[in-house]
């Protein structure tokens, strides 16, 4: 019976396939991360600009006044401050940034697998010819 040795051929195919698959996964991962992060930052940026334009933060200057004034007006001030905040935009921005954290958390296992694969692929490339 003829004996064969296809190890090199198969491993070259495997490494090539793994390179493509890992690159695709990293690309997809970074794209989603970028989209969520950019959305979060962008919406937050709009909200913060709006807050500065409306001078909403100046309402909080009440708390630098005398104690009696603070005691008398703090509830109204807080209510007006809350009303003036661009709540939807802040919520969207917060959810997008929370999405980034959750996305990283649920992919933490895959990240470590991909990291390990990349080190292995580099090792194969480095020592592949002398194996």
């Amino acid at each position, binding site marked *: *019976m003829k004996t*064969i040795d296809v190890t090199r051929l*198969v491993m070259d*195919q495997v490494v090539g396939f793994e390179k493509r698959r890992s690159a695709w996964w990293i690309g997809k991962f970074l794209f989603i991360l970028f989209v969520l992060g950019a959305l979060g930052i962008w919406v937050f940026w709009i909200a913060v600009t709006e807050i500065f334009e409306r001078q909403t933060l100046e309402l909080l200057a009440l708390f630098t006044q005398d104690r009696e004034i603070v005691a008398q007006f703090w509830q109204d001030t807080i209510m007006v401050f809350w009303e003036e905040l661009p709540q939807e935009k802040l919520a969207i921005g917060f959810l997008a940034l929370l999405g980034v954290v959750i996305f990283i958390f649920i992919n933490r296992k895959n990240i470590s697998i991909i990291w*390990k694969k990349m080190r292995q692929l580099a*090792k194969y490339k480095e020592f592949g010819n002398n194996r």
Partner: protein
Amino acid sequence: MTTERTDEALVSKIQQGDVLAFEILVKRYQRRLFSFVFRIVYDAHAAEEVVQDVLFGAYKTIHRVDTTKKFSSYLFVIAKNTAISYLRRKKHTVSLDVIEEQATDEETFYENLVEAEQKHRVKEAMNQLEDTYSRIITLYYFDDLSYEEISRKLKLPVNTVRTHLLRAKKKLKEVLI
């Protein structure tokens, strides 16, 4: 050492990102796969190609492999399917020489099969014979011993061995028919 690891442990390592652990599995199975596939496709070059496809295909789906089950069974199922697909693909382009060669191989295969089947029937029939008769038949037909060798082994005169063998054959014929 990595080489002493079980298939399932290696599969688990590969699933965790240890791509190069697959090399051990390739080295461990390629020859066995080759002889298995060769018996289906009857062409060494094609068998080699199929083995490559099988191993690469197994890698591509390795993340789905259940490590509580035998990896070798999974691998040989892929091998069987890949070899059959190869034959189907090649069905329309196969040359007459190859068909002739395959036909001869198939004839040999079926001859061997019939022979094995007959041997099995004879062995079953022998179980119904007396011990001395079945022993003599085994030694003469299955172990290929001569009368003299059987005579020495059973400490019987050569002529008695002949007589026993003759009677044993008669009884065997009766049982088989």
